[in-house]
């Protein structure tokens, strides 16, 4: 099959790919590096790459200024909760669409996806009012519900494309073997779809974690997640690069680490199951 590639070709490829990769990654790397500098070193001219005095003082300052732990916890609850709730609702729906398709299945799927296109800002005030009326403004449960709803179409779509890969005959075999609908979904479909469900889970945790419109507009002090934590550094007093970098690093580190550890599932998740 594969032919041997000349060593020279491979060296050129490697050099080119690594340069591009590092260039794309550079802003993140620079942020992380800067977070360990003093404020003076952070704006030194010429810029300092590695030859600076590593310090943790920025992290200490950020921790002192704001309650990082609470923001982090809010992010975890909101991103995790909305994703799990979404998957519980989406699995049966995706099962129906993938294995009992009707003439309207495709229309329903596209309609679901189109709700994702509704501009959030168009319904911001109504949602705001509803939240006040229901007493869930600035609560975690309120954000869990909203983020679940905005990501539900994506979750259904991803699960649908994964489920479609599973041969229908296997589910029919389970039916012949005497499995009820619940047993069929629980013992046969779900275990077979674990990789797909894992990818869906990961991708939606990331989407929910990074969601910045609803989390900024529907929270104040109590339920604010890390998006709000970092937005507070956009005010002028936050114009200290080292502290800003430390706060940024703290906001993205959890998801960056999660993302890198689960890279393989994520890559298949990122393609939304739509590309093979």
């Amino acid at each position, binding site marked *: 099959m594969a032919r041997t*590639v000349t060593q020279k070709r*491979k060296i050129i*490829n*490697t050099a080119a*790919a690594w340069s*591009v*990769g590092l260039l*794309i990654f550079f*802003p993140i790397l*620079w942020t992380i590096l800067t977070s360990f500098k003093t404020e003076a070193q952070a*704006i030194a001219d*010429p*810029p300092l790459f590695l030859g600076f005095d590593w310090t943790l003082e920025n992290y200490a300052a950020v921790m002192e200024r704001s309650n990082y732990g609470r923001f982090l916890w809010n992010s975890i609850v909101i991103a995790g909760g909305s994703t799990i709730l979404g998957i519980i*609702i989406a699995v*049966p729906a995706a*099962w*129906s*669409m993938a*294995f009992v398709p*009707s003439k309207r299945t*495709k229309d329903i799927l*596209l309609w679901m996806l*189109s*709700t994702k*296109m*509704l*501009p*959030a*800002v*168009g*319904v*911001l*005030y*109504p949602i705001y009012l*509803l939240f006040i009326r229901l007493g869930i403004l600035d609560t975690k449960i309120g954000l869990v519900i909203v983020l679940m709803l905005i990501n*539900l179409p994506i979750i259904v779509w991803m699960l649908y494309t994964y489920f479609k890969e599973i041969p*229908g005959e296997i589910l029919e075999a389970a039916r012949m073997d005497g499995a009820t609908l619940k047993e069929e979904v629980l013992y046969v479909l779900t275990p077979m779809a674990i990789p797909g469900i894992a990818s869906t889970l990961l991708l939606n945790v*990331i989407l929910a974690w*990074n969601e*910045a*419109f609803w989390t*900024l507009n529907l929270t104040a002090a109590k339920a604010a997640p*890390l*998006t709000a934590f*970092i937005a507070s550094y*956009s005010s002028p007093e936050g114009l200290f*690069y080292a502290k*800003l970098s430390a706060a940024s690093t703290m*906001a*993205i580190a959890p998801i960056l680490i999660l993302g*890198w550890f689960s*890279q393989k599932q*994520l*890559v298949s998740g*990122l*393609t*939304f199951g*739509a*590309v*093979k």
Partner: protein
Amino acid sequence: MATQHSRSAARLMMAPAVVLLLGWMLVPLTMTLYFSFKKYLPLRGGDLGWVGFDNYVRFVTSSAFWPSVLTTLTIVGGVLAITVILGILLAVLLNQPMWGQGVVRILVIAPFFVMPTVSALVWKNMFMDPNYGLLAYLWEFFGAEPVQWLSQASLTSIIMIVSWQWLPFATLILLTAIQSLDSEQLEAAEMDGAPSTKRFAFITLPHLGRAITVVILIQTIFLLSIFAEIFVTTGGAFGTKTLTYLIFQRVLESQNVGLGSAGGVYAIILANIVAIFLMRIVGKNLDA
């Protein structure tokens, strides 16, 4: 292909998702429509009665309206063009044999994990700041005058920031698609005497059609409503006011809910025009 029993079960299992999304769509939409026909100023007297199409006329005749539509489309179009073109090039590069492919892939994906507020702040301050930003150093190093990125080249800057965030997504999808290309097809073309540029143009590129569609669809959904990047960097100044941002200002900053709601209806119409266009393509691709 199923029995009556499983069909009714299917309908039952689909119900929660459908009902929830229907509610999520209809309830706020109805309320937005309702407010759009009212003079409604929460901080200055609240509901001041019906005004017919006043809000719609005022919103569309305000000097900010058409520029905001143009800005929205420019950002979406610019980011799509950059991410698709660079994404294809990058995907082709990453598909070549090399050392440390896995590590490079991790480096390339990374921006996707960065929340928009963070990336906007980091780019704004640490790269695009005309005094202390890294890009300013770079320009000075080559003896050029530093660019006032976010005030003089504001739209370009925002497109750059957003493209950086979405390039990983485009690259990954396109890379997956390239890897799925049957190598026998390429070998057959090679036997037929097609040089590598022609093999790319006539075999690889058409094969990527479906993947490009997916990239465009998904990105458009998210790009039409970008918010944090503008909120954090320019606050809508210097010609970066998108439709989303304009409405946001009407509703939250000037507290004119009636006017903002009319704007919301326009935004929904714009989104629907784009949606119908996209759904056609995707619907066709879903059959394949």
